């Protein structure tokens, strides 16, 4: 990955090509018939066995006094179960949704951290096509849960009529509130994850290729100190990304839990 980007950055005799959306359209690693299998696809498929093996190993020897691995596994599970699911859905029916939320959290988290692991170095969810299915899944779940609890008409009433408003102005508010819950929610959920992964990775590519170009290929030794600065900016942004990658996985799971909790709530 790094080498291809570096080549792309300095292919035509010393002119620098800034990275852009094209930097995310990687050539297929190999092809199965017509289908080109790209790096993000492989990363996505790698993430699932990684998660399964980790939590299998963590729960294999369940001891009363947990070992290190079991402690980490239980800590992550407890974080999603208590910190996200119970606090957002309420202690009455949160337990049903813990498997979904836990899977979402670990899946997004591992795929995000691929962004910083050497040689992998690509966040799968910087491709919008991978974010849309999980956002749609969340959409189906929270609407389905609401309809199952309140019936179709009852759920529609809950969705369309916000608390605190009475009188004729309600007619103007209903379509707005409907769009807000049905359309804006899944769109922002998907865009937030995608845009954060995309922008963070773009920034890293920019600083890395910028440093390489300024130090190695620019042909002007006076540019080298700026290249060093660019290099250290890249390191600094990597540390920022450490935080962002976790936060986005957390926010995605937390909002999913809040949508489910909102759909289950009785009245506004």
């Amino acid at each position: 990955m790094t080498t291809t980007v570096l080549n792309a950055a300095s292919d035509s005799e010393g002119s620098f090509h800034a990275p852009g959306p094209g930097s995310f359209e990687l050539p297929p690693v190999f092809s199965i018939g017509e289908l080109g299998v790209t790096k993000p696809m492989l990363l996505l498929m790698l993430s699932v066995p990684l998660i399964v093996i980790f939590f299998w190993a963590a729960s294999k020897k369940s001891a009363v006094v947990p070992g290190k691995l079991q402690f980490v596994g239980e800590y992550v599970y407890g974080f999603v179960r208590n910190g996200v699911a119970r606090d957002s859905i309420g202690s009455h029916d949160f337990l049903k949704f813990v498997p979904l939320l836990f899977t979402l959290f670990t899946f997004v988290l591992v795929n995000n951290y691929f962004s910083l692991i050497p040689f992998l170095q690509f966040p799968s969810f910087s491709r919008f096509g991978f974010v849309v299915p999980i956002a749609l899944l969340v959409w189906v779940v929270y609407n389905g849960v609401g309809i199952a609890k309140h019936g179709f008409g009852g759920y529609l009433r809950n969705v369309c009529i916000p608390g605190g408003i009475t009188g004729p102005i309600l007619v103007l508010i209903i379509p707005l509130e409907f769009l807000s819950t049905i359309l804006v929610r899944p769109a922002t959920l998907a865009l937030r994850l995608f845009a954060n992964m995309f922008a963070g990775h773009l920034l890293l590519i920019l600083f890395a290729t910028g440093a390489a170009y300024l130090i190695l290929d620019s042909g002007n030794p006076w540019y080298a100190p700026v290249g060093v600065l660019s290099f250290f900016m890249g390191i600094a942004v990597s540390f920022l990304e450490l935080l962002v990658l976790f936060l986005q996985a957390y926010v995605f799971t937390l909002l999913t839990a809040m949508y489910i909790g909102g759909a289950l709530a009785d009245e506004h």
Partner: protein
Amino acid sequence: MNDVPPPQDPWVAFGRVAGGVIFYGGAGFLLDRWWDTSFMVAIGVVVGAALGIYTVAMAQRER
């Protein structure tokens, strides 16, 4: 186990304003197409945003 009411989606305010802008802006856009004017979309966007903010304020007061 404490049974405090679950916290509300913090993005609900954004959703309401955006929903208002989409719906009333869209309505204004269609009216523009119909009447061959060009200002209804602007009015729609402003009205939609205002209604969104109004909804946020009233829902907040209710809590």
